[in-house]
């Protein structure tokens, strides 16, 4: 059972990781906990679902459409809901994000109905064994897609000019502007990337549990946020590790303690880690040289 729960936890954890990255990137750049991120994840799942069910498209193009639509949605939200309040006190931006979350949930109910829709089974259940670890085919797909997306993201952030500009803007917005970086554009790109990753996670979760529903982003968003904080908010590597740790501990905890405590376990890890490392696993205390 241990190994089974471990592979379960790794699959779940990689999904938390993908979602957490979106939180952490947006936080890194505009210091906003984007509470609508979980709902972008939900919208992403619905976009993919729509492409498959209503337009009869195959999985791969639907998946890509889902990510692209979510990226666009993220940019629209940033442009029309967040940038107008950038100069206002931070609390306004934060409230704006909560409002956006409520709006998206209700908008999804309006479009697709409040009930749970069943997500078509596309990947058949087949079991693979690696060493002692047993993976279903779907779990393997989830893991591979997550790793692939994480690699693409780290390539963009570390090796490209845009990525370097993103890192600069997240460290010092004004200095980045003084280098001639169009920081507005960087903010939008960050939202697009984070939202696309969120949509990928949402879709994979929908495939995993074979269900999509308008409130699916709420607790997922909350947990991904916890994962981002565990890893040290603002750090992409941190968010990935935070997500994995949470997925694994949660699955094991649910198996060995009680599945009723599943959600509680996530927050207990958060409290324990923050007690010993208040900035999170990969977070840095900000130092300044004079």
């Amino acid at each position: 059972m241990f190994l089974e729960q471990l592979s379960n936890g790794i699959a779940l954890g990689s999904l938390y990781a993908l979602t957490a990255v979106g939180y952490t990137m947006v936080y890194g750049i505009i210091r906003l906990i984007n509470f609508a991120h979980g709902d972008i994840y939900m919208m992403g799942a619905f976009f993919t679902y729509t492409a498959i069910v209503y337009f009869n498209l195959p999985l791969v193009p639907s998946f890509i459409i889902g990510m692209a639509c979510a990226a666009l949605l993220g940019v629209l939200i940033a442009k029309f809901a967040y940038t107008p309040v950038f100069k206002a006190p931070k609390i306004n931006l934060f409230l704006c994000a909560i409002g956006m979350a409520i709006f998206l949930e209700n908008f999804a109910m309006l479009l697709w109905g409040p009930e749970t829709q069943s997500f078509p089974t596309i990947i058949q259940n087949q079991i693979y064994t690696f060493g002692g670890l047993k993976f279903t085919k779907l779990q393997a797909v989830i893991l591979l897609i997550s790793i692939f997306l994480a690699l693409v993201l780290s390539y963009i952030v570390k090796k490209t000019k845009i990525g370097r500009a993103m890192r600069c803007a997240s460290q010092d917005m004004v200095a980045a502007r003084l280098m001639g970086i169009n920081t507005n554009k960087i903010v939008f790109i960050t939202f697009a990337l984070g939202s696309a990753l969120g949509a990928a996670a949402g879709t994979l979760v929908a495939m995993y549990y074979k269900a999509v529903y308008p409130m699916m982003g709420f607790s997922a968003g909350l947990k991904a946020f916890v994962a981002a904080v565990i890893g040290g908010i603002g750090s992409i590597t941190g968010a990935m590790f935070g997500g994995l740790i949470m997925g694994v501990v949660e699955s094991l905890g649910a198996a060995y303690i009680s599945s009723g405590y599943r959600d509680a376990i996530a927050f207990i890890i958060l409290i324990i880690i923050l007690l010993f490392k208040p900035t999170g696993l990969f977070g840095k205390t900000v130092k300044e040289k004079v």
Partner: protein
Amino acid sequence: MLEVKDLDVFYGGIHALKGINFEINEGEIVTLIGSNGAGKTTILNVISGVVKQKNGDVIFQNEKINNLTTEKIVELGIIHVPEGRRIFTALNVEENLLMGAYLRNDKKEIQEDLENVYELFPRLRERRTQMGGTLSGGEQQMLAIGRALMSKPRLLMLDEPSMGLAPIIVQEIYETIEKLNEERNLTVLLVEQNANLALQVAHQAYVIETGEIVLQGTGRELLGDDRVRKAYLGEE
């Protein structure tokens, strides 16, 4: 080359700049001196488009640049090295320098300019793979100037390059500024609290007090001016 006309800036209800006028000719080092809070940094921020003025114009090479974004202003060749250096601490030295060339696409020339910066500051070459945050204050200032040079500026604006540095490093930085000015004919706008230093290298100097220019002249003239000596050079 650059002309600032009747500049008025408000921060909320505070009248931070009250009708500032000055000019910079090509190839000059011009300095703005004055105490903390006089408005020197604000002037640089307006020129680089970070702060918007209420009234007045900034004219660069006969073109109004008031309403341009910082991006466009950098493209025109005005680069601003901010107070406190603000290098990117989590990027290494070379990545920091390359950020200065963000708007350029001429790869070959960027490499050449990188070499030039390393020649100018050999210490940066030694530390090219080190994170910006691990550098000493003086090295960070060199990096900030090097990064600015990577944008191929025509006007280099430096805000308090001597701040918090040991006198021997300050000396080195100032020698470099003069060298850039003489050898490459780079125009420099220098904001300083260390009036003595700035006046020694400046061709033209302006004294700012509470948002107004109260004195102006050549560096040498102001060094000899009684009011300047009393207020800024600490002499009785």
